[in-house]
């Protein structure tokens, strides 16, 4: 694909792919629920990687699930964003000595945003997504 044709900037609100793994589930599903309601920011839960812009890795990944995450990441169209939640994606977190979990996510796939916390609160995730959209030009500077 020629360089300038590749769409660099994210010009619409983020659609999140439904790969709510490990501990992220208990904090991401309330975000989809009506109390935090991420749809106010235009973030919709999408069921196929083809429509998704953002892949939220919700915590530790095992060897087996890392294979699937890579395949999902390759299927996502180009202006894609990877958000990694929790300390398990940064440094192995609580399972630093487990034989089956991935210790550092950046060895396996490019990550755009780390959100510390175990698991992080919905406010922190919203703030992170806001910064991602500001970084990728999706937000008109008010």
């Amino acid at each position, binding site marked *: 694909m020629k360089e300038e044709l590749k769409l660099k900037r994210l010009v619409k609100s983020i659609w999140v792919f439904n790969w709510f793994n490990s501990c992220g589930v208990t904090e991401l599903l*309330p975000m989809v629920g009506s109390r935090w309601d991420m749809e106010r920011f235009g973030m919709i839960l999408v069921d196929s990687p083809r429509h998704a812009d953002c892949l939220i890795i919700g915590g530790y990944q095992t060897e087996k699930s890392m294979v699937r995450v890579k395949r999902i990441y390759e299927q996502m169209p180009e202006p894609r964003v990877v958000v990694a939640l929790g300390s398990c994606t940064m440094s192995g977190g609580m399972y630093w000595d487990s034989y089956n979990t991935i210790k550092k996510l950046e060895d396996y796939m490019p990550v755009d945003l780390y959100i510390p916390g175990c698991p992080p609160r919905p406010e922190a995730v919203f703030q992170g997504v806001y910064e991602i959209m500001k970084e990728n030009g999706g937000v008109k500077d008010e």
Partner: protein
Amino acid sequence: MSHENVKERELFFGPAHPGSGNFCVKLMVDGEKVLSARADPGYLHRGFEKLMEYRDTMQNAVLSDRICVFEPLAWNLVHAEAVDGLMGVDVPERASYIRVIMAELSRIQSHLIWYGGMSMGIGFDTGFKMAFGYRDYILDIFELITGGRVYPAGYICPGGVRKDMPDTAREKILDVLKRIDEIKMLEKFENPTLLPRLKNVGVLELKDTIRLGATGFVMRASGMRTDVRKDDSYEVYDQLDFDIPIQNDGDAYSRFLVGIREIEESIKIIRQALDELPKGRLKPIKPKLSTKIPEGEIYIRNEVARGEAAMHMVSDGTGSPYRCKIRGPSFLHMIPVLEYLLKGVQIADVPAIYWSLNPCPADMDR
């Protein structure tokens, strides 16, 4: 390969399917009918039983939150009782009551996740939004009492509870319970579009439940009145009176009905426990690096939201357990029971049956 002789195709109800958590079922499908199913777990396997051998008691209490991601406090209670039993410590009366209140709150919150997941599985979006909306009020209570929204970080620890329940928590709990009572979740499912999706779908007779290892609400939905809180009672459950809701026809809807009735029972238990809560102040429990678990062996059985959770702990006198076998209820529900139930059903029923077993991939893979 022409289409005539290809009868069976393999379909993945896979790890990234919107209806299924991180758990994959390989379905051999002929047209719309599922011929056979084969579970393929292991996406969340962290090797918990060996992780606990490298950590001492207080670190294990923090680690035991994450065995089942949906109900951390119930597994805290299992681990705390195993260590208390080995060390021969009997917990102060007030701490035991607080443990029961927190375990029942965690059961209500876990049933709300199940209600939301079941609605998402069969496409009833208002139920999903409502369930996760009201569950958040319980997370506010957890935040007030244990300091963490989702993970209590070992709040129920060996020897009692990490810090005492603040006095403001009582009104907050009663107010949230009133709110959950008001939403009358059952009536939302009594409509002609949802009931046929669950009525006599995935029927499990009583004689098959014991053979397949089903426990908890799956057996109660098939007509067996059994509850570990009453048969093998622990903490102060024998001093509280609550009854066990059962159904008889064992299909997806009756499993769901038993679950929702259990929420009303849990609300009754919490109200009783709050009234009988003994006065007094509990000393906060400080982690000590020198705690030694005396040599011995114990087998603890608890009733968690998904069924019977058990832990077999062997200790050899050092600070950390020598061997700690964790028996999660979803391990039996999602492999033998699900494979048995999925034979011969339509593909459209697979999410309904899957979600009717209150699946938790985390405590299946451990």
